[in-house]
């Protein structure tokens, strides 16, 4: 009889994949654990529970001075693209869009005196997932702490640890450079 460990992700050595800002990663390997550290950024962990294919992204909307929820803003286009990259990666591996479920993390307010970019990021992620019909099965957003997040895509398990700002790694203690939507559209000249 084969005994299946209820947490197969914890059996054997884990392959850690660190997902930094602007990246996304997809896997169905039970030995893979995706990790990230979040300040104002958002990490969306999406997964097809039937196939065990899951992935994580890590993004920060460009600060548009409180207009990040504006539907016609560059910020939303950037965020939608970050989510699209992750979803396309999952579908390419064999996940089905109608089975995807999400867990979202981050969107903290770590710095006084700055606009609450974290809240805008969290609001964007929630709205995007709602509009696309992808249920959010759990989330931890906002607050004044940084977060260390670990995601086992095969099982869907997530472990989060809150980190006081003073103890957080430098990558979240300094405001991350804002991403800029493509001003130019590639290098191939058609005209």
């Amino acid at each position, binding site marked *: 009889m084969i005994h299946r460990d209820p947490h197969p992700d914890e059996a054997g050595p884990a392959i850690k994949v660190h997902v930094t800002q602007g990246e996304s990663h997809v896997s169905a390997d039970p030995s893979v654990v995706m990790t990230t550290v979040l300040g104002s950024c958002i990490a969306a962990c999406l997964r097809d529970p039937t196939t065990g294919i899951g992935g994580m992204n890590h993004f920060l909307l460009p600060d548009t001075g409180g207009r990040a929820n504006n*539907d016609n803003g*560059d910020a939303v286009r950037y965020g939608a693209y970050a989510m699209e990259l992750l979803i396309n990666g999952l579908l390419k591996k064999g996940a089905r*869009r109608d089975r995807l479920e999400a867990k979202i993390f981050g969107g903290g307010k770590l710095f006084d005196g700055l606009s609450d970019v974290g809240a805008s990021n969290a609001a964007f992620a929630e709205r*995007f997932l709602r509009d696309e019909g992808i249920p959010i099965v759990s989330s931890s957003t906002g607050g004044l702490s940084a977060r260390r997040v670990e995601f086992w895509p095969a099982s869907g398990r997530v472990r989060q640890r809150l980190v006081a700002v003073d103890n957080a790694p430098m990558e979240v203690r300094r405001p991350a450079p804002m991403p800029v*939507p493509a001003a130019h*559209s590639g290098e*191939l000249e*058609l005209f």
Partner: protein
Amino acid sequence: MPQASTISVLVVDDQLTMRALIRNALQQIGFKDIREAPDGEEALKNLLAKPANLVISDFNMPKMDGLALLRAVRSHPPIRQTAFVMLTGRADRELVQRAVQFGVNNYCVKPFTVQGLKEKIEQVFGQLT
């Protein structure tokens, strides 16, 4: 100079959010006749029922992807002259080269700006008013 308001556009993307963002960008440029389809298959049906002047299409879509849609458009005489702009990711250079072989008119890299999209369309139609 062509008027954007006289050019009919079909936006093809499987993500509702992205379709809404593209529609919004097109409206800012001045387009008024904008239709949407969630995948290549629906887009082809839509075009054969009612041709459009311009197709703006994503690449990764279920049922029929953007490249297959482009090939289908170019192989149907009633709609083969439709201007076709492909939306791609930054790493899709090979895809763009294949799209060029199949007759794409231009491509635009996501995440795009309104001005960037306008310039790409103007390279096909000329300066828009």
